[in-house]
């Protein structure tokens, strides 16, 4: 089997090689297309990550509120709901079922719906991490904060969350990498991300191996980049003088 990397320099309409590999005057080459697909993958993932962090943190906190059984029940139900339905089915729910219930959502683009689906799907996992992070803290921390006269909001804002979030940076790193991998499921509703690109270009050009290799490489580069960024975040957020939480056995 002979390699044909030249195909990335071809125009997507006429399939002729373009000098310099990047299309001009509105024409695009397969390379241009792939980079834009990578952009879609990154945008879907980052927006979903923001949504997942925000909602996951709220739900995770709800599950640890003292003397508030309904908040805990709501949090548990949230986690079970989003964890026990496959992501692809959740994407179809957002895409086909929700707009049928709320007609106002019919004009919302597939991109937004995938961000919502991926974000809420991941929020269940992040909520679980946040809860276990808070529960791993010594109980005395909460009691000390309460004894200082802090309100519940202040207890979480100034004492529990700053500690808990530092503990859970390693699992959050792997969740972030999972979001990038899971964004590939967006192909099912035709968001022009990397997997969609791989499937389409494989069919158009028949150069499956080259296309898949390039796309797989981009996924691996993305995963590696996240890994480095999160390691940097972990280093920056470390409190001087405090031992690494993992070494202390989550205590």
């Amino acid at each position, binding site marked *: 089997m002979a390699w044909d990397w030249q195909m990335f320099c071809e125009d997507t309409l006429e399939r002729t090689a373009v000098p310099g590999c990047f299309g001009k005057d509105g024409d695009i080459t397969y390379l241009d297309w792939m980079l834009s697909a990578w952009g879609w993958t990154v945008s879907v993932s980052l927006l979903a990550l923001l949504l997942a962090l925000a909602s996951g943190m709220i739900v995770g906190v709800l599950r640890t509120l003292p003397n508030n059984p309904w908040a805990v029940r709501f949090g548990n139900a949230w986690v079970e709901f989003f964890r026990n339905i496959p992501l692809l089915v959740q994407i179809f*729910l957002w895409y086909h079922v929700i707009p049928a219930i709320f007609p106002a959502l019919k004009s919302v683009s597939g991109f937004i719906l995938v961000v919502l689906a991926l974000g809420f799907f991941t929020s269940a996992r992040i909520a679980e991490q946040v809860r276990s992070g808070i529960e791993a803290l010594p109980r005395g921390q909460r009691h000390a904060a309460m004894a200082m006269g802090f309100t519940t909001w202040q207890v979480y804002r100034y004492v529990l969350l700053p500690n808990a979030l530092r503990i859970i940076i390693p699992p959050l790193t792997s969740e972030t*990498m999972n979001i990038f*991998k899971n964004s590939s499921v967006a192909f099912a509703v035709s968001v022009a991300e990397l997997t969609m690109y*791989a499937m389409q270009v494989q069919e158009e050009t028949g150069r499956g191996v080259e296309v898949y290799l390039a796309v*797989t490489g981009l996924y691996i580069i993305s995963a590696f980049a996240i890994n480095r960024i999160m390691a940097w975040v972990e280093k920056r957020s470390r409190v001087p003088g405090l031992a690494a939480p993992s070494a202390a056995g989550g205590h």
Partner: protein
Amino acid sequence: MNLALDWSFYNWDLISNFVLKGLGFSLVLTLIATVGGIFFGTLLALMRLSGQKWLDLPATIYVNGMRSIPLVMVILWFFLLVPMIIGRPIGAEISAIITFTAFEAAYFSEIMRAGIQSIPRGQVFAGQALGMSYGQNMRLVVLPQAFRNMLPVLLTQTIILFQDTSLVYAIGAYDMLKGFEVAGKNYGRPVEAYLAAAVLYFVMCYGLSWIVKRIHKKIAIIR
């Protein structure tokens, strides 16, 4: 808000003509990939713990490689490569079975590796003192305990695997989700079809995870 479901969509026809066939494949795929994945995963774990560089290195590359690529891409890769290698086309279903076994082996190997490492070294030494070979030691002493310690995690991974089988959508294999989708298209009732699929997946996964929780408790008491 308006949700007027056509309840007549849910009838025996839907189940017998579309759902059962897909559900059957989803379950077979889950079962084969779990058994095969645990088998090859254990081999990979043993390779990584062997202390021999020529065994450790390829296993590490395989496991980390599989774990950093999206499952959908792995499904596409196998669907493209396997026919190229064996020289004739294979169906989406067979391709899915091979893919999931190979893919899950990487994840199961990490679980088994942690399980094997959780067995105190003294057990291995005791086995060696009794004159057991490496194979006997693993088969009779280490692996049964590792397997038992890791049972809840292995089962949780199996639930995730069952959910992931829906991704064979990418190559058009006929699984449970596909069954609902085809039925929804045939009768023009996609909303009812996807809702039912979500409910069924939820009931099965939630039920399984409830069982796993009970097993976990039971094992924890005995230990």
